[in-house]
């Protein structure tokens, strides 16, 4: 589904990704772990198309398309969802208004009919219930006044509503208490655990992987994938740490 080949990227002239190569197949949950500063968030932003993140070499193919050739909103319409480590507050814009416009913009780009207000609210209610987020929260302004945990659950409600093919989740577990972590993890499973979907799950901790069992785990260090293995790799990292595991590689 996603094929990243020899990707190099920099921010303000500083090289962050140095020849990153990675493949994620449909039906797969692929965890990316790595020490601080390894380039995990940069990888997420580069895949999302954030301005200022310059790709200097390499390619990213998504479902047969050149992903890097698409504008950020076109990537979303093509089925890519970027779950933010720090979801952005947008004062004056309600979640309902924002998500309905976003969803209908995506549908329009794909040549589908827009959802009516009623249809949209029904969908939003269903996904909010899945993530146990009070529907009243969705009537409030986007992420404004939300706690850290509420922001992350709201991100997953957005993912449920937009129903992407491929989700890049950047530390979606940070800021979550144990119960919220389970709700979010189960939400990811319910929304994305399908044969025709895939997830790139960026995390520091095994505890999210206990709920969202990864099919493969890669270690990102120094802007490259240095090791890839099965779920047992994450367990080893949890026990032994990056230095020990990477020294053995």
């Amino acid at each position: 589904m996603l094929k990243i080949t020899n990707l190099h990227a920099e921010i303000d002239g500083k090289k962050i990704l140095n020849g990153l190569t990675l493949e994620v197949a449909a039906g797969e949950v692929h965890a990316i772990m790595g020490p601080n500063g390894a380039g995990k968030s940069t990888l997420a932003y580069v895949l999302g198309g954030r301005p200022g993140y310059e790709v200097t070499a390499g390619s990213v193919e998504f479902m047969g398309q050149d992903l890097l050739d698409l504008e950020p909103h076109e990537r979303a319409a093509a089925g890519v969802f970027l779950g933010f480590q720090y979801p952005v507050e947008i004062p004056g814009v309600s979640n309902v208004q924002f998500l309905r416009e976003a969803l209908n913009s995506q549908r329009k780009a794909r040549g589908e009919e827009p959802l009516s207000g009623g249809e949209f609210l029904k969908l939003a209610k269903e996904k909010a219930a899945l993530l146990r987020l009070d529907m009243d929260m969705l009537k409030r302004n986007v992420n404004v006044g939300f706690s850290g945990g509420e922001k992350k659950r709201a991100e997953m409600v957005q993912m449920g509503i937009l129903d992407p093919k491929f989700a890049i989740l950047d530390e979606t577990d940070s800021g979550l208490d144990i119960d919220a972590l389970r709700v979010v993890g189960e939400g990811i499973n319910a929304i994305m655990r399908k044969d025709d979907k895939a997830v790139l799950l960026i995390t520091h901790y095994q505890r999210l992987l206990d709920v969202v069992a990864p099919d493969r785990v890669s270690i990102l260090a120094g802007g490259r994938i240095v090791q890839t293995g099965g779920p047992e790799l994450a367990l080893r990292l949890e026990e032994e740490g990056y230095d020990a595991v990477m020294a053995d590689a």
Partner: protein
Amino acid sequence: MPEAATLPSNRDEAWRYADIGALARLGAGALDEWKDIALAPGETRCHAMVVGSDGPELHRVRLTLGEGARAEMFAVIAGSDYCRVEVEARLARGAHFEFGGVTIGGGTAVREFVTRTLHAEPEATSNQTVRSVHWGQGTGNFLGNIDVARDAQKTDAAQDFKGLLLEKGASANAVPQLEIFADDVKCAHGATVGQLDETARFYMAARGLPPEAAKRLLVRAFIGGALVALEDEGEQERLLEAALDALGDAV
């Protein structure tokens, strides 16, 4: 009664940012055209308007509020030529003056609100909120005078201006002027000028909103701050849409 036979100049404080050339096209006679509105004690009136066009406009309104009266005025200046809305409000005891203004546009035009609020008696309140969105070489101004008379204790007056500049070359000016002769009063004023939040734009794009739609939503949220006190939702929507229509030709 005629008050002005000659054109003002930019040296006059209240006309500091005005387009005197446009005013000349309008003619000095326009300066005499004041609309006088008196509110009886306890009366409430609300007026919402969209002004501005492809020619210069000057709107001068004088409000006299009786005891406990409430005047609400909301205006969107969305034309392509010079437009100035001037409001003088004189407040008796316990009266309230609510003002919400939006200037929006590009080109080279100046669009401005000039208010003079006189808290003549105690316990009156006023709240003024102006939002300016400009691009090209467009300019938005808010010149707001608040005068609190010696006896006008317990006055509570607030002015809030925010400018949003979509391009280099556009400008926004806020000139609050407070003259306070009473000692037990609250007068607050704030002014900020900024650009569209790039992080919010990327967040919106990452959810599938094309740049134009994201900009429209962000601008709508921004100018909404000036119209939030307009309780008639239909009127609020009419003013918002008129402002956003002007955004159509923005970069």
